[in-house]
């Protein structure tokens, strides 16, 4: 992990003091609600339906055991004993008191954490994939550049009042697990023929009201120019992005209006002025930051562990968990483990209790090197687990409700907090997720269905990434009541696609039946082991529509 030095530490502590003063002035009436709003947003503080919500940054989804314990202590001391991990690899506390927020931030600063720019019209948390540094298919570890970008974008005075929020993601694996096409800037890091690090830059992607996949603006950008190139994009956007309508203010609208060629020309022109200036990154800086991400001291492991092999052969539940929740590691004898936060109706997707957080922290030390990752699918990852330890870890995870073997399956639902918490939501998300999870509680059946992502957003802002779910569910408001629109065929990764609406929306009560019929249609049409999304692409929406809107209460199951 990156280790703070005196500069990093001074910044977070000064920021706490600054915000403490701002809270005091607001409370004393010296700052109006309107004046205070962007200040609190840029410190991660939202006003939700019932209370303030604090969103804490987990830069590129990486945190240490000590930091996780601090999050647990905050959940316990300032919230109702739990926290919610988000699709942008952050954590939200839903029930905080304004007066206590400076103390919470102080506690975070003591473990090198903050909530800076987790909201507001500025550059947000830089994200990458949850398996960075350990994935078997990784080309280059993207975390050093992610950290360099985090620092550069933190309180960058020119870009704190952009037309709208701005999200940057970076990825460098054969599979794109960071959804870089869905970001305002998506960066793909690779090596050229001479082994030099280069970046493919995508711009103008995003979900929300107008979902658009990012377009390539540059190929082969030498990594030293990362900051100046991003600065050029931001300056063009800051000057020319729309500010008259918040729904038309994201960079994707500007890119669309100008066309990618004209937008790229503007950026190129701006970049020519700054590219060889002091913003050019140095090898020394890269090395300084990269040191923090040096691989831990892996111990040589025997290729096959007898106990592990025996458990795999003897314990079907364990084998099933391994098949879904364990990812290949670049070091022989190790694996990465995904702890599912989607146990079904027992807890909303992404929620962890303080006790669970403490346990995860303990496991990360006992079975790894004290590191934990947050996936954008809202699950937690222990990146470095010896294969011989998988069985005992699984047993512990099951005891804590974190051992559900459903990663990538239908019940591994991505959901925003929705109308239960969020002031923007049109409809609730969590009860919908739970109703679906209850309906599909047979793990054998789920495993037979295979890869199938289902994403739920409570409103058009798309925090639940419904557009890129194989099945997407969007909460909509119809004359004051809650309805749900269903999309099919969305996908993330390199084959990213936006789902298509199948027809009129449904009431909450109808949704489990609708999902069941969609799944049954898939079962009827799939060829061999064809994944759901491929079947949808091959047969189109028609067969699904026919089944779902036929109004015949028909229930069918997959043939095994």
């Amino acid at each position, binding site marked *: 992990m990156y280790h703070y030095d005196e500069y990093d530490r001074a910044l977070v502590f000064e920021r706490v003091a*600054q915000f403490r003063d701002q809270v005091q002035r607001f409370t004393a009436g010296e700052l109006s609600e309107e004046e205070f709003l962007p200040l609190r947003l840029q410190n991660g503080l939202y006003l939700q339906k019932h209370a303030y919500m604090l969103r804490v940054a987990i830069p590129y989804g990486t945190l240490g055991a000590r930091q996780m314990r601090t999050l647990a202590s905050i959940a316990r001391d300032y919230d109702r004993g739990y926290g919610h991990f988000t699709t942008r690899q952050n954590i939200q506390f839903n029930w905080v008191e304004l007066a206590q927020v400076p103390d919470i931030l102080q506690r975070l600063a003591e473990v090198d954490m903050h909530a800076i720019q987790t909201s507001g019209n500025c550059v947000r948390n830089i994200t990458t994939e949850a398996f960075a540094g350990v994935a078997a298919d990784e080309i280059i570890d993207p975390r050093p550049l992610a950290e360099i970008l985090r620092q550069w974008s933190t309180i960058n*005075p020119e870009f704190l009042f952009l037309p709208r929020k701005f999200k940057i993601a970076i990825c460098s694996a054969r599979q794109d697990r960071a959804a870089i096409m869905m970001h305002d800037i998506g960066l793909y890091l690779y090596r050229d023929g001479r082994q030099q690090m280069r970046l493919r830059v995508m711009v103008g992607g995003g979900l929300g009201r107008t979902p658009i996949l990012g377009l390539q603006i540059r190929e082969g950008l030498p990594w030293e120019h990362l900051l100046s190139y991003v600065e050029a994009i931001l300056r063009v956007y800051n000057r020319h992005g729309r500010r008259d309508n918040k729904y038309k203010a994201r960079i994707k609208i500007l890119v669309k209006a100008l066309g990618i060629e004209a937008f790229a020309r503007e950026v190129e022109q701006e970049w020519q002025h700054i590219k060889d*200036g*002091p913003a050019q990154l140095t090898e020394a800086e890269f090395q300084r930051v990269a040191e923090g991400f040096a691989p831990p001291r892996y111990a040589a492991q025997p290729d096959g562990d007898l106990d592990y092999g025996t458990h795999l052969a003897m314990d079907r539940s364990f084998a099933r968990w391994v098949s879904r929740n364990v990812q290949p590691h670049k070091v022989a004898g190790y694996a990465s483990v995904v702890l599912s936060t989607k146990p079904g109706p027992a807890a909303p997707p992404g929620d962890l209790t303080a006790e669970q957080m403490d346990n995860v922290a303990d496991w990360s030390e006992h079975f790894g090197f004290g590191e934990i990752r947050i996936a954008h699918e809202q699950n937690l990852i222990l990146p470095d687990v010896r294969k011989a330890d998988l069985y005992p870890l699984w047993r512990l995870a099951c005891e804590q409700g974190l051992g559900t073997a459903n990663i990538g399956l239908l019940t591994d639902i991505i959901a925003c907090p929705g109308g239960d918490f969020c002031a923007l939501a049109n409809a609730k998300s969590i009860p919908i997720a739970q109703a679906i999870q209850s309906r599909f509680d047979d793990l054998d059946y789920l495993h037979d269905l295979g890869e199938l992502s289902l994403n739920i957003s409570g409103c058009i802002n798309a925090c639940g990434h419904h557009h890129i779910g194989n099945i997407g569910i969007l909460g909509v408001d119809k004359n004051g009541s809650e309805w749900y629109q269903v999309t099919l065929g969305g996908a993330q990764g390199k084959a990213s696609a936006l789902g298509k609406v199948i027809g009129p929306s449904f009431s909450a009560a109808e949704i489990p039946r609708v999902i069941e019929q969609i799944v049954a249609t898939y079962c009827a049409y799939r060829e061999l082991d064809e994944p759901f999304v491929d079947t949808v692409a091959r047969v189109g929406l028609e067969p699904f529509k026919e089944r779902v809107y036929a109004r015949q209460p028909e229930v069918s199951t997959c043939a095994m």
Partner: protein
Amino acid sequence: MRNVIAIRQGQAQLVEGDSWQLLGEQEAPLPTGALILPLHRWLAQPSGYHGLWLGPDDDVESLQLWLGVLPLIAIDFPSFRDGRGYSQAYLLRTRLGWQGELRAVGDVLRDQLSHMRQCGFDSFAVREDKSAADALKGLQGMSVLYGRSVIEPRPLFRRR
């Protein structure tokens, strides 16, 4: 103008009796005194006597010709949440080499002053219902700047 803070020889101070007057699009010209005029009004009668009032839509690059004549440039913040003025200031200072006074006017508030200063503003007409003495406290900002700015062109990684 009232409520003006200026940085002179590196020192921030409240300005007593600032003589500049902002003149809007529609207002009739005042008989005497130094005015700050909207771009097209200033261009109608370019003069080294009157300053320029730049709106967020105005193109800074078009000022190149006049920089040798202008006594002052004021950049308008119609709302403190409109950040275009920061990029305009950056461009004026670095790309166009403007050395004269650069004043933030409009919705200018204590909690944004340090960002404005970083972007090259050296005077600030604080919104009139606010206390300039209080706003002065916001000018310092934080001791750490990761990136670079007009007044600190080297990013932290070159200073660390």
